[in-house]
């Protein structure tokens, strides 16, 4: 059947262009422009995109928040933020001056209709003055409670165009939601319903910034561009998988937020589940967004559900007590500002998960996330089975199994641990590692996750964003745990000393299975 010709002709100068990653002209509207995320991540990311010539010719940024500011004061704040948080310093003043001409500010409450009238007028001005062609990317860097009013405000003010218009060469509208996306399955479903009343799913970009990290993206390349690993990637050869997201910092002034979320909602439900999906998923039929996300959803649906009977044996939570981190004495969680003295909120979770499918049957996935742990590290470790028969006299613990570890942060890289003979007359076995470090091989100035994700959203590429059914499947799984914990009589989380690797019960979880946690 002949292919349908595209409605809009292609730009012939883009054919075969190596440096081709710009988007259509557009305005990026940041809700929550006074917040930390805008200062630390979003604006530095946009500036770095400008520096790399990755922003389109027609471009502007409209910040929107409740606080009173002028365009000039907002630009000045953003200049300081970029100067402080940009990965490339010093700031290029000539480029910034030009970039800042397209930066403006709208003051208003997100639940007030006049805010959207002002925003609309501002966007119409930028269309004329900055050539943004009515294309808008709305970035919701706000608490989840404000998602609903913003979606409603955008809809009722006519700031949303349908994807059908885009297909006919008209302007586009996209919306980016920051996590947390809901606080349980019911709230995530309600939020998705609300969004679906205004936006088509193709216009929705739910951000999980872990997916923008180079190492996480490399996981797909590593697994599916090398013939070496995929044949051993399953129950035949893998004993178990460990995924760790450890932070050495505490809640860092976010006590109020943490009291509502805990680490399960903050990290496990999204980042950890995504890492598990990318590790366990089958090869997608292509790298198109839906092909990749279909495979991730299959993994989530294969997770053995948690229920009140299994949670006590499969999940351990904890809360940090006083301790020493990086040589400094630190407070307990319950002593942090805005935290209840009798808080039962967890700052550590360890879980044994089972992916009940053909590939992973019988292979446990041990996942853990914690605050105030011994060090900051995120890694995925594939622990292979031991050799079936030992030919060599080995030290007390016998021949240790091979481990493939994918380090997500810091020192991003991949290491393969194997056994080697120590040179000499005797056969002495030693654990050695083949170590690939991103920074060594490719230089350390890699783009920040937010640069990649912002540009992808502007380009309409959704592979690195989570789809509705994915988010709901993540919540469906975690709801089993959260319901068990909320039952009357469920014991409060045990404490662990700050600077340790979590409570003893987390170690016991693996010891019961004859295994132990890595100390990455």
């Amino acid at each position, binding site marked *: 059947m002949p292919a349908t010709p595209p409605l809009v002709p292609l730009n012939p100068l883009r054919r075969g262009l190596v440096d081709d990653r710009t988007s259509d002209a557009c305005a990026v509207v940041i809700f929550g422009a006074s917040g930390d995320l805008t200062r630390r991540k979003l604006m530095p990311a946009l500036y770095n995109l400008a520096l790399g010539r990755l922003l389109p010719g027609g471009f502007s940024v409209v910040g929107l928040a409740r606080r009173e500011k002028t365009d000039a004061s907002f630009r000045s704040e953003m200049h300081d933020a970029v100067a402080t948080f940009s990965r490339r310093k010093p700031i290029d003043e*000539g480029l910034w*001056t030009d970039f800042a001409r397209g930066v403006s500010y709208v003051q208003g409450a997100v639940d007030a209709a006049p805010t959207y009238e002002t925003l609309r007028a501002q966007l119409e001005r930028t269309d004329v003055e*900055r050539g943004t062609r009515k294309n808008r990317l709305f970035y919701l860097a706000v608490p989840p409670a404000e998602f609903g009013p913003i979606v409603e405000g955008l809809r009722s003010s006519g700031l949303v165009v349908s994807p059908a218009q885009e297909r006919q060469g008209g302007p586009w509208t996209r919306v980016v939601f920051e996590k947390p996306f809901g606080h349980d399955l019911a709230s995530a479903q309600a939020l998705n319903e609300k969004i679906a009343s205004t936006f088509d799913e193709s216009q929705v970009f739910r951000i999980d910034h872990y997916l923008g990290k180079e190492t996480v993206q490399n996981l797909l390349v590593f697994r599916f561009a090398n013939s070496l690993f995929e044949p051993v990637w399953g129950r035949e050869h893998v004993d178990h998988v460990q995924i760790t997201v450890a932070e050495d910092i505490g809640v860092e002034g976010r006590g109020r937020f943490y009291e509502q979320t805990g680490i399960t909602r903050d990290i496990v439900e999204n980042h950890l589940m995504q890492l598990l999906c990318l590790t366990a998923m089958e090869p997608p039929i292509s790298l198109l967004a839906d092909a990749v996300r279909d495979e991730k959803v299959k993994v989530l649906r294969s997770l053995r559900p948690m229920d009140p009977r299994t949670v006590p044996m499969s999940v351990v939570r904890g809360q940090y007590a006083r301790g020493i981190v990086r040589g400094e004495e630190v407070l307990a969680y319950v002593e942090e500002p805005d935290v209840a003295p009798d808080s039962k909120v967890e700052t550590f979770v360890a879980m044994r998960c089972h992916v009940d499918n053909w590939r992973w049957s019988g292979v446990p996935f041990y996942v853990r996330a914690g605050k105030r742990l011994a060090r900051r590290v995120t890694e995925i470790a594939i622990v292979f089975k031991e050799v079936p028969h030992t030919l060599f006299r080995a030290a007390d613990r016998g021949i240790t199994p091979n481990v493939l570890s994918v380090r997500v942060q810091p020192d991003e890289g991949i290491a393969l641990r194997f056994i080697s003979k120590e040179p000499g007359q005797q056969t002495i076995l030693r654990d050695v590692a083949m170590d690939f470090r991103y920074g060594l091989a490719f230089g350390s100035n890699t783009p920040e996750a937010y640069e990649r994700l912002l540009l992808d959203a502007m380009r309409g590429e959704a592979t690195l964003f989570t789809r509705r059914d994915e988010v709901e499947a993540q919540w469906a799984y975690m709801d089993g745990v959260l319901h068990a914990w909320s039952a009357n009589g469920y014991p409060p989380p045990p404490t662990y000393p700050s600077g340790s690797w979590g409570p003893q019960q987390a170690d016991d979880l693996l010891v019961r299975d004859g295994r132990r946690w890595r100390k990455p």
Partner: protein
Amino acid sequence: MSEPANAIARPAEVLARVESELRTFWSTPATPGHAPRTRACTMNLLVVAPTFKLAADWVPIVDEVLLALPARGIVVGLNPTGADTLTASVSAVCTPEAPGGPSVCSERIALSVGGAICARASSCIGTLCASHVPTTLVWLGSVRPDDLEFARIAGEASRLVCDASQSSLDSLAAIVSWTRGRAEADRPGITDLTWTHLGAWQELCARLFDEPRLRPLASHVTRVTVAQASPARAPLAPETALLLGWLGTRLGWKALVRAGKMELTRADERALQLELRAEPALSSSGALVSIELEAEVDGIRLRGEIAQKPRNGASNAAGTWRLEVVEGKETQHLEQVVRLGDCNVARLLERTLHRPASDPTLAEAIDWAVLCAKQTGWRA
């Protein structure tokens, strides 16, 4: 790390000494109290220069690249008309020690090969290349058709990096022709430092036609004005020629001489005006200074310009991108300050090494530019 090995020694002795020094370096324990050295090697970065002087100039450039991209660096100076000689020196290029972390080191070897030994240069180089990683050859000289010296050395490389601004279009064409003559499995990718530098200009030219209503105008360019930093009537510099070659191949332009006058025609065979301007006041480097494109169709008129600002010593050239669109009574102006890419050779090479190993559009642009230059005798 070492003084040049003895010039009158036999090549095998010189190479053995180099290998021995490399082994010694890695077996020597780190100074007590210092973090251990970590060796890293992602490729053989082989730079071959047509003179000893140019090779010496490239040693610090390679060292700078090795700090960001660990490799075994081998810088070779060739002097076939000089006395028979082979000298070598070995050094390690190490990142500063991070607190508590190891210092990461790359090896760099400098070779000077003269006289009859040049015929054996590829064998000497092959001995010194690390065997488990691919080889990237940066070829700084000109290449003639059927250039045996080049063919012997390039035959082992998986990737070729040329520098059109230091050689010529004909040399680039000879390299393209040589690679086409090789079996597909052994054909190295070709990239070029000047082409990498042009990446910014290409992207900005493409940006002029990104808006859907402006895309048809790309096929209706009526006038192109290109300025290069050169004396009047100078030949077209490789950078300018490659940019025109890229535009020509993307937009289906043809060049021909009619009644002794050069003409460019579009894909629809309509003529388009080409003006080549020299900017003698700036420098004689042949660098691209500006490009203007004008186009018109269906009542829409477009004028786009990319112009480099005076560099004032900065290695990263700033420029301006301007777009003016007139449709009926409405006129739209857009202007952006942009970076036109790094002119620091080390960073340009590093950037080139991070790009795809081969860019087919480069070979197409070279073919187009060479053909046009031959037919028309282009002069700025």
